[in-house]
């Protein structure tokens, strides 16, 4: 049995879990190709133009699975809420409904719902709905498979917390390995890059931002390297409560990084038309001003050119370098002044003694 999972949205956060879960139930996963320009334009043709980029890309991946990969079962979950009354954005909540109405092809859509605000819509119900259409209804086997899934997911989380790039961590976790490397922070500039996983780790959307930063001598820190506690602390820094299901990875991480002295600047990457992000970024901007952290907000959509993107990142890092240099020079000057003051004192004493 084969099911198709689009390489978009939830894939970047939950794929190791799905891999373990479906694998242990004997279901093979077929992933769509990596995002390309054609895939994006195919997807955008299906939905209205105001829809945000990630959803357009998701539709493109669904088409890719159906047309190129020969899959006729698509797995498209709806994550309604992750905690009591902590809801997701409407487009993610109604994702399977969107797929059903927009993709006019013959296929089986598996559309489980996870809704922690309702009584009977928790994780196991969600998992049951995930495999029941495939004929697997043994609840014990599902529970067992879920444990396998969590093992993979935990390995993945462990590696990302350690600072590994999430895509690399995902590949390692799927092989069943855990690699913890020792890392030395030798970069002159540290930037926190804040974005949802599906924007940041999709190289077509983020235009290889990690490589670009690396070439500029910048170390990029991401929210995946923070623990939930740190991000919750971060929310308190921004003086807000959790409202969106995926608010922690932006607002929470921003708060945490803003109070971190080793971080020189913050870069947010949002998709145009993202409702939650527009509000989160507004708040982050306000607090960045107060806490005096340099901030660059980049908005991407399907028309964003790479040249403009690079220029803005370069200008931002240049500014950070200059600021850091100025700081160092200032500190040195202070040091020199202190030293020279001390010498003068010593000198004057000497003279007194001489006199």
């Amino acid at each position, binding site marked *: 049995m084969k099911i198709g999972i689009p390489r978009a949205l939830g894939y970047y956060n939950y794929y190791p879990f799905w891999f373990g879960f479906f694998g242990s139930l004997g279901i093979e996963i077929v992933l769509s190709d990596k995002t390309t320009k054609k895939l994006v334009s195919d997807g955008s043709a299906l939905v*209205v133009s*105001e*829809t945000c980029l990630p959803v357009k890309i998701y539709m493109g991946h669904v088409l890719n699975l159906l047309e190129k990969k020969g899959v006729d079962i698509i797995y498209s979950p709806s994550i309604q809420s992750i905690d009591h009354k902590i809801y997701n954005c409407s487009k993610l909540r109604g994702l399977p*409904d969107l797929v059903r*109405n927009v993709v006019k092809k013959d296929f089986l859509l598996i559309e489980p719902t996870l809704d922690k605000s309702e009584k009977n819509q928790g994780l196991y119900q969600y998992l049951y709905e995930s495999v029941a259409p495939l004929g697997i209804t043994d609840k014990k086997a599902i529970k067992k498979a879920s444990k396998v899934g969590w093992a993979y997911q935990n390995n993945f989380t462990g590696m990302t917390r350690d600072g590994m790039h999430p895509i690399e961590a995902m590949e390692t976790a799927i092989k069943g390995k855990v690699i913890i490397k020792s890392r030395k922070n030798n970069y002159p500039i540290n930037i926190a890059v804040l974005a949802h996983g599906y924007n940041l780790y999709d190289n077509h959307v983020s235009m290889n931002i990690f490589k670009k930063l690396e070439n500029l001598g910048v170390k990029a820190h991401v929210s995946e390297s923070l623990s939930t506690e740190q991000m919750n602390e971060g929310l308190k820094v921004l003086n807000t409560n959790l409202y969106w299901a995926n608010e922690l990875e932006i607002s929470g991480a921003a708060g945490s990084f803003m109070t971190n002295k080793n971080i020189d600047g913050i870069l947010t990457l949002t998709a145009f*038309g993202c*409702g*939650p992000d527009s509000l989160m970024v507004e708040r982050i901007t*306000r607090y960045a001003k107060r806490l005096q952290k340099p901030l660059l907000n980049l908005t991407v959509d399907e028309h964003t050119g790479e040249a403009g993107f690079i220029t803005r990142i370069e200008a931002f890092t240049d500014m950070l370098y200059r600021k850091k240099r100025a700081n160092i020079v200032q500190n040195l000057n202070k040091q020199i002044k202190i030293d020279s003051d001390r010498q003068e004192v010593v000198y004057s004493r000497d003279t007194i003694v001489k006199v």
Partner: protein
Amino acid sequence: MQAEDNNIKANKERIVAFPQMGNIRIPVAAVLKAMGANLYLSPDNNKEALSLGTRHSTETVCLPYKLNLGNYIQALEGGANVLLMFSAPGTCRLGNYAKMAEAKLKELGYEFEFIVFDMYKGKFVEIVKKFSQATGNKSIPNAIKGIKLGLAKFDALDAIERKLFYLRPREIESGTAEKIYLSGRRSIDRADTVEEVKNAIQSTLDKYNSVKIDNNKEILKVHLMGEFFVLLDPFTNMNIEKELGLLGVEVERTIMLSDWTNQTLVPKWNKKTETHRQRAVRTAKKYLTRAVGGECIETVGDAVYAAECNVDGVVHVGPFNCIPEIVSQCILPNVSKQENIPVISLLMDEQTGKAGMVTRIEAFVDLIRRQRKVRKTRIIQRKTMKNSLKTHSRVRIASR
């Protein structure tokens, strides 16, 4: 004694203001006045409020927030110092707006008290409590009296507005019904007791009877649906009901103010008929199986319901960049195709020009008028076909 005096003084200095949305000012003002509050009545939504709001908010925030912020700034400039706002979970970005507006206004240097109707904590009790907090009113009978008057005004406004929707496309001299409606609205605004409200309705309905209507005119019927704020605020939707009415289209708006108050305020066990939402969940099932926040499921459900009612078309309005309405906008073409009903989506933002919108509506009305003709001629053709078949068979029988 002195403490009491101080209290009264403090109350006297409190001037309450609330954001505007179409007719909602009349009943809400009635409730607040009955509870003894000093009111700052900001003007109906206008261009100035919009440009003020747009200047002080992020670009991609939706139109309702920009207008609310503009209202607040105008009110604070006008001397208000207590602001009211709603906040509800699981809807859309609305839940964030109270906090955002407060932070922004504080940043602009205003001093005020911000009272948020937090719908996380139950509904009716919270509303009474927060109204009391805003007005400094301590007597519960006064509060109940005020809320009763407010609800009566909600119903009254709807009653006269519904009749207006019926008369507007049919009247011979256009604009007469509108005048009567406006004077009726004023008298409802002025009424101080439930009795007076009832009289106001009656006199307005009597006046409506004098409007001359053209009974032979062919009237198209359209359901107007979409996002709550845009639907109810004539400034934001550019008075789309009037434009449609002048084109000879009878409008039925799927959300009326009183429906909404009944839905939110009346407890679940006391509801006798199917509420709007329940109906929408039932009819939308084929297209949308889960509530996704905002009015998305209502929009999709209403479109299906409109097809069931055999109306001529559906006009869908919403603010630009509204998350739930984007979802419904993606789903509606499919509904339109499967249920065979024409749908037009109009999304408003601060840049939308009236002329362009009117052109689109005109084209849409032309299309549905033509479709109606086609449908009618088809029915006539079918009938004549049947008749001719019948006569044929009769002839045959006779010839035998």
